[in-house]
């Protein structure tokens, strides 16, 4: 007698439960980009800022994504773009996490007047449309990826502050926290040891999803001339160059696809992490 095992069960027998398609798919794409970012100088077909051939060449076997107005290889520049977009996204998310989570945790745990003051500051910052605030900050600091990063941290930290505060508020009245307070633990210890460890899941999920959004915002700032400065092979800057050559579609195609894959991958990864870290949200 033969037993028919359902396909899904067979799949689950070889792949662990946490390895959902979004998580694995998103993770693989991001990992590929990271590998490209680290290794591209070793195998890049051309220099990203030097002449690689005749200008405005359409895609060919020699230049997979054609060449731009200065005869630079668009494929090479697209791959090099990750070396600018990823670090800026990591730095922005990292700084925004540190600032936002610190502010949110203190506001949520201490409460009272300090909470009100900090949350009004968050409200004011969040009341500006993100792109407008980023543009205003970058315009006043001057173009450049460094200044764009500062602008994006200013835009992003309040999101984490609000999220962390909500998490701290939901955890601080639990029994184990009250027990820690009753046993004489200091307030910082209670916050760090007993509250924060239970708050990270949604923050991590949010940060993962925001990764793609930061890449997109950085590209937007470069597109309007407030981010990367020439000849940096930055995706937004490249799309801006392509916009000036509308009928030479290949100039903007590479960076456009790159942004698409990164944003999609970070969304997938965020979704997968959420399913993994908070199965109730499924």
């Amino acid at each position: 007698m033969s037993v028919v095992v359902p396909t899904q069960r067979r799949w689950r027998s070889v792949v662990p439960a946490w390895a959902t398609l979004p998580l694995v798919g998103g993770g693989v794409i991001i990992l590929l980009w990271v590998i490209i970012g680290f290794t591209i100088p070793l195998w890049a077909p051309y220099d990203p800022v030097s002449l690689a051939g005749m200008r405005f060449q359409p895609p060919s076997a020699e230049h997979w994504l054609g060449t731009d107005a200065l005869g630079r290889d668009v494929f090479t520049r697209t791959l090099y773009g990750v070396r600018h977009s990823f670090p800026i996204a990591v730095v922005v998310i990292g700084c925004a996490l540190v600032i936002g989570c610190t502010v949110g945790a203190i506001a949520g745990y201490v409460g009272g007047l300090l909470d009100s003051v900090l949350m009004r500051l968050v409200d004011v910052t969040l009341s500006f449309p993100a792109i407008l605030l980023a543009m205003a900050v970058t315009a006043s600091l001057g173009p450049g990826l460094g200044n764009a990063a500062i602008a994006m941290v200013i835009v992003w930290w309040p999101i984490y502050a609000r999220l962390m505060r909500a998490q701290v508020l939901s955890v601080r009245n639990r029994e184990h926290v009250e027990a820690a307070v009753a046993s004489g633990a200091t307030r910082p210890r209670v916050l760090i040891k007993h509250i924060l460890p239970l708050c990270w899941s949604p923050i991590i999920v949010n940060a993962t999803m925001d990764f793609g959004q930061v890449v997109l915002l950085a590209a937007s700032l470069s597109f309007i001339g407030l981010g990367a400065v020439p000849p940096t092979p930055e995706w937004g800057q490249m799309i801006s160059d392509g916009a000036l050559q509308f009928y030479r579609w290949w100039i903007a195609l590479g960076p456009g696809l790159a942004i698409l894959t990164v944003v999609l991958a970070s969304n997938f990864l965020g979704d997968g992490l959420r399913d993994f870290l908070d199965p109730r949200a499924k």
Partner: protein
Amino acid sequence: MTTIARILASGSTALAVLAALGATPPAAAQEQPLVIARNLEINSLDPHRAFCDTCQIYLSSTYQGLVKLAADDRSVEPSLATEWTANEDQTQFTFKLAPDAVFSDGSPVEAKDVKWTFERLKNIQADPSFMMSGVTSIETPDPKTVIVNMEKPNSEFIGILAAPYTGIINSDVASENGAVAGADAATTDQAETWFLSNSAGSGPYVLDTYRADDELRFRANDKFWGKAPPIKEIVIDQSADAVSQAQMLQSGAADIAMQVDPDTAETINSPDITIETVPSYNFIYVVFSPGAAGNQVPLDREVRQALAYAIDYQGAIDFTVGGNGALQASPIPNGFPGTDDLPMPEENLEKAKELLAAKGLQDGFSVDATVAAMNVYGVDLAMLMQKIQQDLARINVTLNIQPVASAVWRQQITDPGIPFSARFYAPDYYGSAQYVQFFGMIPGSWWERNASQKGKVDLVNQKEVDLLQQALAASGDDVARLYREIALEMINDRIIVPVVSPNLVLAYRNTVEGVRYSACCNLPLAELSRK
């Protein structure tokens, strides 16, 4: 008649009626607004404060000078003045005004208006004020006679009067609205805002409306004393880049696209559109400012010369305008007096390296290069800078390109200065003195002031000062000879280094006639009509 014949006959009648209905009569066609796609980039509509390419179009259509540039782009012909004479040493010029010339409000153009206009242009101390430098007094013996007295001989004065900035303003109307012509005009004149919504000239058009970064609308001057312009309403529609302009042209949203570059022109394949490529006197140049605060090494003449040697000029022409341009030797454009057989800019990496090594700079250095993020004459200035960045990297010089808005560039070049930049220029009239007065290292010229940052570094070239005086007093072949000597001095200064004189692309719908490039005025609107 058979049934088929009857059907054919009635069909052809119907077609004839449809054709008659469909064909717009010429008069009605001229009533339709003609739309021009262009990046407006207007700094002012006050004739004496304006200084931009669109300003040239605007001023030459709404105001008239005493003379105007003829279609050959060289000679001048009568406009408000029917005749003029100069004394032997070119220090006194007498003009007779047209008896029937009237402003757009119907009042006559009189000598007092000419005197008031020239005095305001001089005293307001704005960008085009240099055109009246040297005017000591203006006499008006009768309402139709003007005598202009100069401090020194000025053989180019008649040519200058063809520049759009010297158009005659209705002094009564302008004065009522805050315009001042006195010696203190620079501080007391309040008319700039009024000029943004009003014109006060005698040209074929009047200003209908102006909305910054949106549109500039002209209406035919119904009191125009000359031949009435065929088109009754013209709109210059803001369109920032060549691709948008080409799209407007192809979709029928625009009749003329003014700044389509050769690369974009190649992508236009419509039988309804005419594309003409003509040489122009416009040019793009790079400029060194040794007095700029941001200089990391002194940009002295040898260093400037080294950097100029490192530029691949032919490559720059190929990369920026697809080869549709010409090399230019000096800041005086090809074809102007004194430019015959000038040595063209040379790419010589070995000499560049030698010069830098002699200065101990063989390991290179960085130069800040702020540039206006704009496309002019089909050249994207930031793209040009990237090409030069590649060129200079060959001698270990790093160019830090910073694209900024044009208004920011104008502010920064004045203070604190920009070590290295790129800019553009179009002539205001046919004559070489304007280039010496703007680009020459003569005291107070626009670039002497800004490149030296108001004298922080001494850049004045006394030979240019002396030669200009001689040229302005000269006549015949001596004029070209003297300007040639000045051009050689300006080349040797290496402050202004012309990179490309781009050909101009005239792109317009086949239904439009009269589109031509004018050296003083870009596009003479009054000559446009519909077929």
